[in-house]
């Protein structure tokens, strides 16, 4: 009989071991594509099962720590409290479904690409994410953080034969290193005050630091981790990197990797810096609100489905940060109960997002797998060609649109509630929170609009191109992976009363108080009761929805007697062709017009006439929206740097003698320096 503590150590070792097995076997079995994919992804899935059991037992038990051999200066180690465990849980759940999906998905690469390389990177990537959330030393953290960034870069450029993929990889690696630079600055400030790189000492030092240093540490951490999380205006890499990566990897990057940045934000803001000053919370709230609205606005007009999902990730990170910002405001204002509710809302949304965004990216992968296009205008009618995938994607679409009884609804409801509960705080907070809540409401509506468009244009009606015409259903492992997430989306939507107490244990680690039963409770029918009498019962809602769902069927049954089936009248023109369909661009046109100032749409039309000016031979229409942040913030900076680099290039003559002369001159100057100083 092994003791509980030993058990947990075994679980953690098993988790790491299986990722290693996955990585190594991927390399060893490189020659046989099928076997290689199967073994490496299955062992990732096994490792994730270890991860799920491990993290659940830490959340419901005690923190786990493990010291690795080191010197007194650098003491590397693993520390997993309930917060880290929650993120390990999120990672593991996502990895389990995505790994099963990957077994089917990588068949597309068989014979074309190196599967062993993909399997190796995939396993190491997940391992690095696990270590990021469990490192207890700043240096160790930076090492695994860099490992995660570099490996994810290699995964992004996996299809490196496409030039746009290489560009995406370049933008990603530049942005992520800018972020890492700020993280290092922030950690150096913290380490300078605490005298050690251990995270435990950061906790004590953060509170005692002079205000200016704390502010700097906060701002640098926000920029650094914000870059990885994809907050506006540091988000530009997401719409490039996520579409470029293979879809199983995008599911992990968007669903999980950007969440590790949220994890570190919570760690730094609450744990290390003690939520600091009032304006921190407002800043995070403002950044979150801005990211939410900007992200979804770009998602609405994006024709590339994977790019659209990447923009939507920016939106969802925004929503999570709204929760965290509100939590910081409440925490700093001495209302830990409210802070806990806001933080629970944020973490719940984080969990939900990793599930439904994973599902949607896998869905996008299935579409690309069978149609070989990412352009929504070229899809259509997929519900008839790939019925199971379509239903599963529909579940994801409904979840992300925050419709009950799916998962997105509960967490967005909680976020709203936590914002509204803060109204009796003070006038300024009330104004800020109400603006944020209003923007969040708009975001929700636009998200629903955006995904309605995606599903309606992509899956309904008739195929718009050859690609969509010949689409076939995805293979079994892919459907299994997506199915798992679809079921999870529904469960997270109707069973929140099981999840909230667990989340409460997680938020307790950094808020300090338990909100469950003190500030919110769960009564009969799984009703979540919040302060100020707001309550929600998801099971009752589900029952109610089923009752209402019956209504149209009953009406239909009554109307059957007098129904005549006949073709639609189309003024003498044939109606049932795809040329008559509503396009995605036309659908999102109203939004494009309302937010003209942001999009700055440009259009170009070109018509060729045959014989008479009344007979158009062909007509070409092109429309594009501006990426404001890239064109007005990043491009000028890039141009400036490039111009300066051009003039600095003079020293690079390419002549061996010149380079040697530089060394020689430096040497002589140093000699002179020593002679002058020494005598």
């Amino acid at each position, binding site marked *: 009989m092994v003791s509980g503590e030993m058990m947990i150590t075994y679980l953690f070792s098993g988790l790491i071991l299986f990722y290693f097995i996955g990585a190594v076997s991927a390399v060893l079995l490189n020659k046989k594509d099928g076997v290689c994919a199967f073994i490496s992804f299955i062992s990732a899935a096994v490792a994730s099962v270890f991860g799920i059991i491990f993290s659940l037992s830490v959340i419901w038990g005690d923190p786990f720590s493990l010291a690795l051999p080191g010197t007194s200066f650098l003491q590397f180690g693993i520390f997993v409290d309930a917060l880290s465990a929650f993120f390990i849980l999120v990672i593991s759940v996502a990895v389990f479904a995505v790994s099963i999906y990957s077994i089917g998905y990588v068949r597309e690469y068989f014979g074309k690409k190196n599967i062993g390389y993909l399997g190796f990177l995939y396993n190491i990537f997940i391992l690095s994410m696990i270590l990021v959330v469990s490192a207890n030393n700043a240096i160790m953290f930076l090492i695994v953080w860099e490992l995660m960034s570099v490996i994810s870069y290699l995964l992004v450029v996996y299809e490196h034969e496409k030039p746009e993929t290489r560009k995406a990889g370049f933008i990603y690696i530049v942005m992520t290193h800018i972020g890492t630079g700020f993280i290092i600055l922030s950690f150096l400030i913290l380490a300078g005050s605490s005298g050690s790189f251990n995270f435990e000492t950061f906790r004590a030092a953060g509170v005692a630091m002079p205000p200016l240093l704390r502010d700097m540490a906060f701002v640098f951490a926000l920029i650094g981790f914000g870059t990885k999380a994809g907050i506006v205006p540091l988000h530009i890499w997401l719409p490039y990197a996520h579409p470029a990566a293979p879809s199983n990897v995008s599911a992990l990057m968007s669903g999980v990797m950007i969440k590790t940045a949220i994890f570190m934000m919570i760690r730094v803001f609450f744990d290390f810096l003690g939520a600091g000053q009032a304006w921190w919370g407002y800043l995070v709230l403002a950044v979150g609100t801005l990211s939410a609205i900007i992200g979804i606005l770009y998602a609405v007009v994006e024709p590339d489905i994977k790019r659209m999902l990447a923009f939507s990730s920016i939106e969802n990170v925004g929503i999570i940060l709204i929760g965290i910002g509100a939590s910081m405001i409440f925490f700093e204002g001495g209302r830990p109960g409210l802070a806990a509710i806001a933080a629970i809302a944020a973490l719940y949304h984080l969990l939900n997002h990793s599930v439904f965004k994973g599902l949607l990216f896998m869905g996008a992968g299935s579409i690309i797998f069978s149609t070989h296009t990412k352009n929504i205008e070229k899809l259509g009618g997929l519900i008839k060609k790939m019925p199971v995938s379509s239903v599963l994607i529909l579940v994801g679409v409904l979840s992300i649109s925050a419709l009950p009884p799916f998962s997105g609804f509960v967490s967005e409801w909680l976020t709203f509630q936590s914002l509204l509960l803060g109204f009796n705080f003070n006038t300024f907070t009330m104004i800020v929170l109400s603006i944020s809540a209003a923007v969040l409401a708009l975001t929700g509506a636009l998200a629903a609009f955006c995904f309605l468009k995606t599903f309606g244009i992509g899956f309904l009606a008739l195929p718009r191109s050859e690609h969509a015409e010949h689409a076939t259903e995805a293979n079994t492992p892919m459907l299994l992976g997506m199915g798992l997430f679809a079921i999870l989306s529904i469960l997270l939507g109707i069973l929140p009363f099981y999840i909230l107490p667990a989340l409460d244990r997680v938020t307790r680690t950094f808020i300090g108080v338990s909100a469950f039963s003190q500030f919110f409770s769960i009564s009969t029918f799984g009703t979540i009761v919040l302060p100020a009498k707001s309550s929600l019962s998801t099971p009752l809602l589900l029952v109610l929805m089923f009752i209402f769902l019956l209504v149209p069927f009953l009406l239909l049954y009554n109307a059957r007697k007098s129904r005549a089936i006949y073709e639609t009248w189309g003024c003498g023109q044939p109606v049932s062709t795809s040329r008559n369909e509503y396009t995605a661009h036309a659908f999102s046109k109203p939004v494009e017009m309302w937010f003209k100032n942001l999009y700055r749409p440009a259009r170009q039309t070109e018509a060729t006439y045959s014989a008479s000016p009344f007979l158009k031979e062909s007509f070409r229409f092109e429309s594009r929206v501006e990426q404001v942040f890239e064109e007005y913030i990043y491009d000028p900076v890039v141009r400036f740097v490039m111009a300066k680099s051009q003039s600095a290039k003079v020293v690079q003559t390419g002549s061996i003698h010149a380079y*040697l002369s530089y*060394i*020689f001159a430096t*040497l002589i100057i140093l000699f002179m320096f020593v002679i002058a100083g*020494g*005598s």
Partner: protein
Amino acid sequence: MSEIILGSKMVQLIIALILVSTFLILGSTRLYSCVRAFGIQSFLLACVAGIVAYSTGKNDIYIVALLTLVIKAAVIPYIFIYIIREIKVKREVELYVNVSPSLIIGGVLVVISYYLIRSINILSELSSFALSASMSLVSIGLFVMISRKKAIMQMLGILIMENGLFLGAISLTYGMPLLVELGIFFDVLIGVLIMGILIFRINKTFESIDTDMLKTLIG
């Protein structure tokens, strides 16, 4: 005791001769005489090592001395001559800096090295003589690399620097552990072979071993 060996007139004389051989390299415009001067320099270095071995009584320094004699004074000059013969280039050095300014700069470098070592001030008067010679060798080696066009001279320059380091090491430590010395010799030998191959490649690509041509490689 160890102070006495390096202070002895014998060693001082040899070190002075090493410097002279370095100036021979600076002063000649024929590739063969440069290589010959390098061979003499290495031979003198082997003599220093031999005297150190004799007066400290450490047997492994004899091995070092012998290795210096074989590798640096015989094998490497032979490789040089082989390369020069095989490549069939004009046997002139081709300078950026002419002979007389080169000699003056060499002299200035020796003076700077002397002052440098004197200003460090942690060494006794006697071994500082060897150390300043070693410093001069390093800086003159670098200067040879800069001021000569042919790739062979860059190779020679780096070997002069290596000799300087060897002289410095032996005058400071009176013999490093044999394993380290063997490692260094191995490094030098392999380095020379690789540089030789590189020179052949450069010659094949550019029809010349003028390193100025490498400018065209710039992206």
